[in-house]
């Protein structure tokens, strides 16, 4: 029980690494993988706190987050394929039609 803080710190580190990846990478698929990593970091703190508080609701939340991530993966990757068919690239700088 004393090591709850360790799990939360690992979760924070993974979330921050994911943030850096989302903000610095140009490849849309790598950005997508970093978003998945951030979701997983949050899942880790959900499970750690659920264990610490003796309540399973947090783990049910993790289950729903995984479902949403799966749906997001299916739709997001379909969007990348569609984008690639139009632009011959998946560089996020090429998604600039709505740019000012």
């Amino acid at each position, binding site marked *: 029980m004393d090591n709850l803080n*360790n799990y939360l710190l690992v979760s924070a580190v993974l979330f921050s*690494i994911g943030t850096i990846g989302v903000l610095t990478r140009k490849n849309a*698929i790598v950005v997508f993988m970093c978003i998945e990593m951030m979701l997983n970091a949050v899942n880790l703190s959900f499970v750690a706190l659920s264990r610490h508080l003796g309540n399973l609701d947090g*783990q049910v939340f993790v289950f729903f987050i995984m479902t949403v991530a799966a*749906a997001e993966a299916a739709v997001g*990757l379909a969007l990348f394929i569609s984008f690639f068919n139009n632009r011959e690239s998946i560089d996020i700088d090429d998604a600039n039609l709505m740019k000012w």
Partner: protein
Amino acid sequence: MDITSVFFAIVTIVAIVSALLVVTCKNPINSALSLVLTFFCLATYYAMLDAPFMAAIQIIVYAGAIMVLIVFTIMLLNIRVDANKKHTHQIVLGSVIGIVTLLLAGLFIIKGNVAAPTGPITPEMIAQYGHTELIGTVMFTEFLLPFEVTSILLLAAMVGAVVLAKKKLS
């Protein structure tokens, strides 16, 4: 220092190094494989936290299904490795935001105080009834409506993926 702490330290080092590799690798395939390693480390954490069902679906859903989708897409799109475009200001700004996030979160975690255990679930209870059964009991009583809504979400995602990825009928 007991064996659990040593194991935790090893898993943490592997998790953080592989997470850094996801961000720094030039080739998306290498990033994807490092991400699989990160997911396995998270599954190990779940197993250490007395949540074996979560560890199983972490490996089946994330390391299995989602990563296969991602690797398949990388293969299908046949993208070349990043050209040597430099985006120094973007990298500096992104790293600063990430590090500030980490410092703030770390400050809250170290200074903050999580409430004492309140729920009925103990590790002994999990060992006696089984984790899957306890999760199932909560999910199909208290969270039944969200569970059913999830099925609609998955149906919508399935239809959406088919519609988005198909060729235009000309």
